[in-house]
């Protein structure tokens, strides 16, 4: 088992493996978020997706999300794996696992993680449709980045 908690990979993701990293004696609850490739978005049919990442930085940003979670939910342990490359419909793009002693925190911290991924982790998807293809950005409709960095991200150095 790969014991790194925050991973970018071009291989299929095992939900069980990501989950196993956060299970521990003190935890009673684990939540997973599993992002899969959806066929239709706003009525448009996706044939397949392509994910590209800036892997070294993306893994750092995932680890930062893990650190943010531990600040907000001190008893939580987080593991995240995101896949890159070509993904077909229903393939798993991302798995987030969070364990906590009590269940409410496991849901809240997990949802926090996926929101933060969509804000600040350098991963991009390209949609391939029947009539074309496009790099997708700004799913959250954040708009401009006047400061040059995503909201809430401060450098540690």
């Amino acid at each position, binding site marked *: 088992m790969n014991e790194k908690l925050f991973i970018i990979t071009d291989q299929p993701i095992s939900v069980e493996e990501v989950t196993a990293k956060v299970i521990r004696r003190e935890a009673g609850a684990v939540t997973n978020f599993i992002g899969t490739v959806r066929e239709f978005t706003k009525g448009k049919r996706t044939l397949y997706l392509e994910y590209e990442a*800036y892997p070294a930085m993306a893994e*750092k940003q995932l680890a930062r999300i893990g650190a943010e979670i531990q600040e907000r939910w001190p008893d939580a342990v987080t593991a995240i794996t*995101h896949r890159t490359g070509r993904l077909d419909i229903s393939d798993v793009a991302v798995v987030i696992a969070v364990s906590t002693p009590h269940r409410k925190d496991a849901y809240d911290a997990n949802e926090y993680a*996926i929101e933060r991924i969509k804000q600040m*982790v350098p991963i991009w998807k390209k949609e391939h449709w029947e009539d074309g293809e496009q790099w997708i950005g700004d*799913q959250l409709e954040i708009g*401009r980045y006047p400061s040059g960095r995503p909201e809430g991200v401060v450098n540690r150095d």
Partner: protein
Amino acid sequence: MINVLCFAHIKELTGAEKVQIQQDEMTVEQLLNELNYRYGVSGDFMVAVNEEYADKEDIVKSGDTVAIIPPVSGG
């Protein structure tokens, strides 16, 4: 020399994963202007210097790795 990494549609604009700028020191903003002049790179994006998000006023030096980060769409 400053290395600039390009991703997603930025890579399609520059035609390369990595481009180089022959400068010892410049601000992030100056670097963006240079990329705009050379490749027409413009729009909403973030910039990372050595794998950390940077501000437009931050200084980039020879040997640094700069990444142009268009709006992300992972998850």
